């Protein structure tokens, strides 16, 4: 089954929510991301994978506006987002989490979620209600009064996702959301991602090193190596691609 068959069988749109073309980022002589072309279709879960140093986080930073591209175009929901500030890109519906802390450490869970819904909800009451609803959604309703920095790592990851979905994003970018989670927590988080995608219609882009989990949840993959596209396709196609196997395991001399 190729990527096209797969996405039509899952029922997500062929319409690209994000179209990346010729995306390049240079740091002096180093080309961190080179001439990258790919699309994210509305309603899919796309996995961005590759060995350490492949350029995954740089690509993420380019998409969210935290790093300006040296070249190429980024079309999100039909409009260019090149050169926009991170908060402007976020307002258009492309919201991301960070690899490390993606929450407000010294504040309570409730305060974190109230701030996250600051733009979406206008009144204090709406913000409080919205925060409670999001907390229930991500399973933090019993921890509302806890300081975020004192939460266990798995709950902090859930809080990061809760903060991001409070903005009701069209495209949710998750940078290594499964790092440091144990098996049960991974299963819970993956269920949450599936629900977000299938029920809310949120398109998701995930970067993570947990291949087993990624293979189980992503509709499609893009594999990077040395900042370049190595392969793309379904889990099956990527898993059996000799170049991908070589990138992860090395090749026989």
């Amino acid at each position, binding site marked *: 089954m190729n990527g096209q068959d797969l996405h039509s069988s899952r029922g997500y749109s062929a319409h690209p929510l994000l179209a990346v073309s010729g995306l390049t980022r240079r740091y002096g002589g180093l080309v961190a991301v080179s001439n990258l072309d790919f699309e994210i279709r509305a309603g899919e879960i796309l996995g961005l994978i590759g060995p350490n140093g492949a350029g995954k986080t740089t690509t993420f930073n380019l998409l*969210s506006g935290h790093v300006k591209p040296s070249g190429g175009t980024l079309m999100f929901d039909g409009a260019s987002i090149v050169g926009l*500030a991170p908060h402007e890109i976020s307002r258009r519906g492309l919201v991301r989490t960070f690899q490390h802390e*993606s*929450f407000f450490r*010294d504040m309570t869970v409730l305060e974190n979620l*109230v*701030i996250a819904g600051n*733009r979406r909800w206008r009144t204090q009451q709406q913000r*409080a209600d919205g925060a409670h609803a999001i907390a229930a959604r991500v399973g933090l309703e019993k921890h509302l009064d806890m300081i975020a920095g004192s939460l266990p790592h798995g709950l902090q990851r859930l809080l990061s996702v809760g903060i991001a979905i409070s903005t009701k994003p069209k495209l949710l970018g998750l940078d290594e959301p499964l790092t440091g989670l144990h098996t049960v927590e991974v299963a819970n988080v993956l269920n949450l991602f599936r629900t977000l995608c299938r029920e809310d219609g949120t398109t998701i882009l995930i970067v993570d090193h947990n291949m087993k989990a990624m293979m189980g949840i992503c509709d499609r993959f893009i594999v990077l190596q040395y900042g370049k596209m190595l392969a793309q396709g379904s889990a099956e196609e990527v898993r059996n691609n000799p170049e991908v196997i070589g990138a992860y395991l090395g090749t026989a001399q």
Partner: protein
Amino acid sequence: MYSIDRRIIALNAALFVAAVGWLSLSEPTYLTQLVVWSAINAVLAAGMRFVLLIGETNMACGAIYGFAAYLTAIAVTNGIDVVPVVVIASGTGAGVLGLLFGWVTLRVKGPYFMLIGFAFTEVIRLAYTRLDLVGGNSGMVGIYAPMSLEPWMPAFSVAVCYLLLIGFFAAEKSSFGLLMHAIRNNDKVVETLGVSALRVKLLCFVIAALVVGAAGSIHAYSYHVISPGDFSFLIPVYALAYAKVGGERHIVGPVIGAIFLTVISQLVQGSGALQYVLFGGVIILSMLGVRGGLIDIAKWAACCCRIGGRLGVLKDPASGELG
């Protein structure tokens, strides 16, 4: 979450009436002047703390404070004698200066922002020494309120300072205050929520500049004489000391710190060069003895009296714990 306890409002109203009432009925004395200086320093310290809420140290507050004082001096020596108008106009001028400075400099953070602020304060101070319009090194004299209002100036000054402090408290308790705390925690995440961290920081900085500017104007009325040396880098250094010694977790901390250190500075003033050693020694001892600031002593007293739970005024806005 953001509502202010009615008991805090009642407590503040009572304190306000008591302070302003006493000053209105008293003849101007050294003690009333000390109260005014303490109130001005409390606003300065609270202004420093307000910017600390976004994680930045505002060493430019010396320039902003001095700029408003000079605006007041220029206005008064040119015959404008409507005190509230002068205070508001000077504060607004300081706010505009803060807007221009913040727009350019708030793109950098931490030590870079602090050093730029330090340099700005010194450059502005040096500019006064070169400008004949503002009296050069000699400064400006004759900054008096109209004769009929002079007896009321201590009460007016403390009333304005109190209201400015209440303004800081209200801003911090608002959803904007929560955003400032969030920026101090993690400004990158704030950006991902569709909020421009730069604009929030700028607004915070301008609010602080407006308020510190109004305090600078009252400084000019209070001392009647100003000179460039009054607005050196020592202004933000002292403001930081007031905030740290008093405790920066709650706005009451800088107020306590300002009152404490203003009184101490007056007590050691006759000691010549030794006064700086004594003053510094008191700051070091306070910091070592009460890490969270003098407000921790109030917390301890409140706990001892078993009224901690009811003394909402000392609650830390971030954790909800007593300050």
